[in-house]
């Protein structure tokens, strides 16, 4: 069964460092998303991406965040200068559009900022 793949599963970084979280969406999907979940809290939308551009972003997704689809398969989230409050689980998701109803979530990357 096709799945969304995220790497790494756990990333530890120092405050102020740049991190790149990587995702490989399901191959024929058209819409891509990043969400985050701070420990014990609900899942929050960060950004959606379609047709090689951001279609929507939340207030969390400030200038420190960027997304990119550098080739036909990868979808990345970059945080330029990490803060302690960026520590969370980051989920990538993709959906196909058309008759595809679901957003499929990856297993997540746990980001720990020290």
């Amino acid at each position: 069964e096709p799945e969304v793949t995220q790497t790494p599963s756990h990333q530890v970084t120092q405050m102020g460092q740049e991190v790149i979280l990587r995702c490989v969406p399901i191959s024929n999907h058209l819409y891509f998303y990043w969400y985050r979940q701070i420990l014990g809290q609900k899942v929050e939308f960060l950004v959606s991406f379609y047709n090689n551009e951001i279609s929507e972003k939340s207030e969390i997704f400030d200038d420190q965040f960027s997304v990119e689809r550098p080739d036909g398969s990868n979808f990345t989230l970059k945080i330029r200068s990490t803060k302690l409050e960026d520590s969370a689980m980051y989920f990538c998701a993709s959906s196909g559009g058309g008759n595809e109803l679901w957003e499929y979530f990856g297993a997540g990357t746990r980001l720990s900022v020290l």
Partner: protein
Amino acid sequence: ELKVEQNPLFLSMQEGKNYTIYCNYSTTSDRLYWYRQDPGKSLESLFVLLSNGAVKQEGRLMASLDTKARLSTLHITAAVHDLSATYFCAVDKGYGNKLVFGAGTILRVKS
């Protein structure tokens, strides 16, 4: 702004009992989803509900949707320990639109 509220936020149940989780949302939405999350894991899709009166069942879980009341319910029948998890409802407004999640209901089923 679309808001989603779930209750209860925490539910401790005895095995064999029935209970219902409620999900209210604030504005018209195209689809309502139920996801399950085990600790430290990703989100597992359970149900998607599209239309008023929709009802879906899988094992001991049954989800329903009332679009007029902007309410979905997740009913648990004869709970078993394996159902212990956090359950999220989420809504969106169509293809390519973000999912807005409720706060989640932590379900603990005790033997």
